[in-house]
């Protein structure tokens, strides 16, 4: 595996859930409509990289996380770790995987077993993987997450610690196996702002200093932008845009990304941002069918949006991908589609 190969990637990943069919549905032979929580997601995480996945509730980001960590089995597509398809893993492969891919959850108070001391919580992953030197490793990792001196915390229980401290312990637990990838699910959304800053700083340092890659999942664009080099925008089970952070913030291409960025409150009374023009809410992901999933709310909607847009590389920009009919030429008709796209793009630039 070369340097440029991704450590963790997904190709066309799908995760559909069955709905509970009632007896009446079965009798009436109603089609079992599935909840298409993840529908064709392709991501690639390289070493020393932190990527964000941003989306509102119902976009499937938590399902994505759980599928990546192996808690759910995909219903389609593949996940590759170090180039190998995880659906073909045997037991020892899984052990390797579990040692190298770790997770941090949102709720610091619920991420640790209330009945175990901090030392025991940190010992557990070491015991599972038969690693020696436990006491030393535990101390080191507590120092890494800035819980100093470690002795102060080792014999405490979760109910004796604050949210910020507990989240550091969760990070320590994720780090103790020296993983290659950490998946973080909204790790700061339940913390106070003053604590958020220090945890975000810690997470940023981790990717730089410790050779750990990270997928950071959140609905909060402000914190994701702080920590991540690259951002993937997710809507109703699909990635609609993927770009380096500053590029996305400066020049978002997908109408949903634009709306999302425009809706983030700015801590400045003089900025005069203007409120969102988007109405309505995210659709139900049940039985959603073909076509662009954002078209019901999209201000740039065209007829062709009834067809599912492809996820393509933008020619004019570096490492920037979008799934939107506005941004690629459609080969079918002679020139009409292209004109359409250019016209609309011109319109968009004027109004920005």
């Amino acid at each position, binding site marked *: 595996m070369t340097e440029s190969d991704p450590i963790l990637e997904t190709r066309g990943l799908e995760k559909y859930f069955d709905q509970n069919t009632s007896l009446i549905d079965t009798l009436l032979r109603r089609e079992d409509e599935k909840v298409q929580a993840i529908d064709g997601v392709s991501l690639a995480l390289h070493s020393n990289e932190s990527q964000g996945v941003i989306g509102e509730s119902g976009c499937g980001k938590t399902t994505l996380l759980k599928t990546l960590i192996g808690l759910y089995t995909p219903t389609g597509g593949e996940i590759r770790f170090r180039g190998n398809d995880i659906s073909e893993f045997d037991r020892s492969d899984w052990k390797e995987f579990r*040692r190298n891919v770790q997770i941090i959850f949102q709720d610091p108070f619920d991420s640790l077993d209330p009945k175990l001391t901090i030392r025991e919580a940190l010992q*557990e*992953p070491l015991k*599972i993987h038969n690693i020696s030197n436990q006491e030393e490793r535990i101390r080191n990792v507590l120092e890494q997450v800035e819980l100093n001196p470690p002795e102060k915390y080792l*014999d405490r229980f979760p*109910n004796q610690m604050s*949210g910020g401290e507990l989240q550091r312990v969760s990070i320590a*637990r994720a780090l103790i196996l020296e993983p290659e990838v950490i998946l973080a699910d909204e790790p700061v959304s339940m913390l106070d702002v003053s604590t958020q800053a220090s945890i975000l700083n810690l997470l940023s340092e981790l990717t730089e200093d410790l050779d750990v890659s990270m997928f950071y999942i959140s609905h909060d664009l402000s914190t994701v932008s702080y920590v991540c080099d690259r951002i993937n925008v997710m809507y109703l089970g699909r990635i609609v845009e993927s770009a380096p952070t500053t590029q996305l913030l400066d020049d978002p291409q997908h109408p949903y990304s634009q709306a999302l960025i425009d809706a983030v409150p700015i801590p400045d009374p003089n900025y005069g941002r203007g409120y969102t023009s988007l109405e309505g809410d995210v659709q139900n992901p049940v039985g959603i069918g073909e076509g662009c999933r954002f078209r019901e709310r999209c201000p740039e909607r065209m007829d062709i949006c009834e067809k599912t847009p492809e996820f393509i590389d933008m020619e004019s920009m570096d490492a920037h991908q979008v799934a939107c009919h506005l941004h690629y030429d459609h080969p079918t008709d002679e020139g009409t589609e292209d004109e359409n796209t250019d016209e609309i793009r011109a319109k968009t630039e004027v109004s920005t």
Partner: protein
Amino acid sequence: MVRNNLSLTDFGFADHYVVRNLVGALKLMLEDKATIVYFSYLVFVLLLGVFGPMLAPYPYDKTLYVNGEILRAAPPSLAHPLGTNNIGQDVFSRLLYGARPTVITGLLGGTMIIGIGMSIGITAGYVGGRVDDTLMRFTDIVYGVPLIPFAIVLVSLFGIGFLQSIVIIGALLWRGNARVLRSQVLQIRERPFILASKAAGASRTRIVFKHILPNVAPMAVLFFSLGIGFSILIQATLAFLGVTSPFIPSWGVMVRSAYNSGLMSQMWWWTLPPALMIAFTVLATFMFGRSYENIAGQSNENAFAQAG
């Protein structure tokens, strides 16, 4: 607000978490007055069960004579604090002897009830899917079985026996706690710390024994306690109905004999003590279970309240 937790390491004990959980439970219990009362009473009954026969002034089946005549139906006196029954046996001694079968019933029945209930409930809750469906359908079937009539039928098939009756009780009464424990497990199973263990590679066994069991423990203690209480109660009922062996002098049998003699209301010294003992013991098990589960549950909530 941090409770004053003395660590076992302060005493030089090995700080293994099982020991710690047990000691913690004990300390928790001792902090609540009501729980101490119920627990003490139960310990008292337990001690009666162990030492009762040794303390009894007379053997339980000895017929007592006075002036050559059988001392029937004697009211309480200094020599016989609870008088004698209709065939001249000392009621007080019989009461003391009667503690033992009661205690055995309670412990054996309670253990069966919680043992089966936990196994089925936790397996169904944790494994889920078809296993869960099957186990729960089975539980539903067992729910449908009416306890007393079923016991009577089984007794007529397999004969009256003390242990048999306990086994019947245990084999049916687990049905209540299986469901509840299952739903507790369903809740705990989705909590982040369980998912984190799974993600770290913990095996199913490890998760169940190390994470799920300690967290369902308060409820399990409650059901164990209730199980003991119900076993004693049902056993007494079966004894009263004449379905159990009349030769073992349990408290239920004493009440039954009093009833059969037709002198139940007159010989209150024979009827009331065993009945009251049954009542208080069962009551104590219920109350202990409830109050323990209450404080154990509260201490979990305090943990979150203080931190939030």
